């Protein structure tokens, strides 16, 4: 390592004229950060590959009905094949969302971040925007590539549907919206607990562990409240974003006593079922609430 003598240090100074903080500059900084860490780049790569790979795999090896599905049945099969990756990518983005902020706390980077933006919120909003846009773009690009590849494969197997149909288009778009919201939710969790292990444990617990526990509990003690809590968890509420809407959502699920369509709410049996937009509303609401709490704490806590 060489040492430069102090007197030689300002020989060719770079002019620092309009040097100050701004939100677009913070976005640029967070974008540099995102693409210069291997783990985050890997998460996006996995997200991309899984979305395309799983869909092609399912379309290629799957068998669909008696060899001829069209109308609603065809659309439903198409949507479930194209959005198959969500089951895995939701876990990937949950890890990514936590990692992108907990990694800064674990390494002490957050102190550099907050020294550059001592107001803190600007840097964190910028980080959230970069995370959300990147996740959505990678997810949407890979899902639509998968869709374009899957359509002819499925068509060859007698599954006919159009990507332009609202009931196909919306869930495919919704799958990317869902993973984007999950990434933001995980970001909020990471910001709250500030450790990678704890953040990932909570995020995955929320997605993987809590729903079956509530379901089993609900079944065991025949408690509607357990199922109703489950309906508002991100995994369950968000499911309606990417699932084919058979037209029976927003109605009563149990008992088969087909209640009136329209808004969701407690049915005769007292179990809440959400439709697509309500699922979006609930998931986005959770992100918003968690975001407010964690940002409030970030402002108050020592870095």
């Amino acid at each position: 390592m060489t040492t430069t003598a102090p007197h030689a240090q300002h020989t060719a100074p770079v002019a620092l004229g309009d040097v100050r903080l701004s939100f677009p500059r913070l976005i640029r900084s967070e974008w540099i950060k995102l693409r210069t860490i291997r783990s985050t780049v890997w998460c996006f790569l996995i997200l991309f590959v899984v979305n395309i790979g799983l869909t092609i795999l399912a379309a290629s090896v799957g068998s669909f009905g008696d060899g001829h599905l069209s109308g609603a049945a065809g659309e439903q099969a198409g949507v479930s094949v194209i959005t198959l990756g969500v089951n895995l990518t939701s876990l990937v983005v949950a890890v990514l969302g936590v990692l992108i902020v907990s990694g800064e706390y674990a390494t002490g980077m957050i102190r550099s971040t907050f020294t550059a933006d001592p107001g803190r919120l600007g840097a964190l909003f910028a980080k959230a925007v970069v995370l959300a846009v990147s996740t959505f773009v990678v997810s949407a690009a890979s899902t639509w590539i998968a869709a374009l590849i899957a359509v002819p494969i499925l068509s060859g197997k007698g599954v006919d549907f159009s990507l332009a149909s609202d009931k196909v288009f919306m869930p495919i778009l919704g799958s990317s919206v869902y993973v984007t919201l999950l990434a933001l939710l995980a970001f909020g969790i990471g910001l709250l607990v500030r450790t990678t292990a704890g953040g990932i444990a909570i995020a995955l617990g929320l997605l993987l562990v809590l729903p079956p526990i509530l379901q089993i509990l609900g079944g065991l003690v025949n408690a509607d409240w357990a199922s109703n809590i489950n309906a508002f968890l991100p995994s369950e509420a968000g499911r309606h974003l990417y699932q084919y809407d058979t037209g029976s959502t927003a109605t009563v699920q149990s008992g088969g006593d087909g209640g009136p369509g329209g808004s969701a709410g407690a049915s005769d049996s007292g179990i809440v079922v959400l439709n697509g937009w309500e699922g979006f509303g609930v998931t986005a609401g959770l992100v918003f609430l968690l975001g407010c709490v964690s940002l409030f704490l970030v402002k108050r806590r020592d870095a």
Partner: protein
Amino acid sequence: MMTAGARFRTVVPMIEIQHLSKRYGPKLAVDDISFTARPGVVTGFLGPNGAGKSTTMRMIMGLDRPSGGTATVNGKRYIDHRDPLRQAGALLEAKAVHTGRSAFNHLLALAATHGIPKGRVDEVIQMTGLESVAKKRVGSFSLGMGQRLGIAVALLGDPQTLILDEPVNGLDPEGVLWVRQLSRYLASQGRTVFLSSHLMSEMAQTADHVVVLGRGKVLADAPISDILSGASGQRVTVRTPSPELLAGAIAGPDVTVQQTADGTLSINGVGAAQIGEAAARAGVVLHELTPVTASLEQAYLELTQDEVEYHSEVAR
């Protein structure tokens, strides 16, 4: 370098700490301290580990919330500046770099927040001697390289005020010398340089003014020469075959004479010249007459001996 920021320099660059406190649970880490670090000089921040130096620096940089009082940089709280990296650059004690990112990308990302051009990133990499490792991931850095990167970050915005927490930690002798020269050079440009250390000897080489902190309180805030002369006074070692006679000859209200095990006298409160003259008048033979100047290290230990949080048995 200074011309570009002319319009930013309407306020005198300095750090002003007023009645600053920080409480962690029942413990007061920083207890109502006030002092000022002025431009054009290197202000040392000295104290044993756990005295509250790092906490104070983190509060200046807006990373920790003060429990009371204020810390301002160039006239405003750091958090209220629109160009914080331009106002103050900080190297904080713990590493503040993502280990998975290269030094270059780390600097580039921080520069981007303020629109600092890439040329300046290259410049600080060159200034800190990191050219050969700039593209390597920071996780592989030695402590010394990490310190250099931290200093590069601090210099990034060409700030008027520099806050360096234990900057020579982990540096090799050449690096220590470099930090010393750099600190003095930056101060000579009219900047405020505020650096901490737990080593008095380091301060003696670098700082003009010293703020000594012990258990969260300011024990001394003075030019380094004052701390040196004021703390211990002058001591003279004398060897003589007739110590009682000499003691009588120099006796006075402020004079203390102590006889050590090997027979030498340790005399405080009177100079070597006066002792020699008094001995001549009394006809006392002297075998040795040595003025002992208190070292800075001693002065520092005297100042902080009651304030150290963790005494080692040997040190007592």
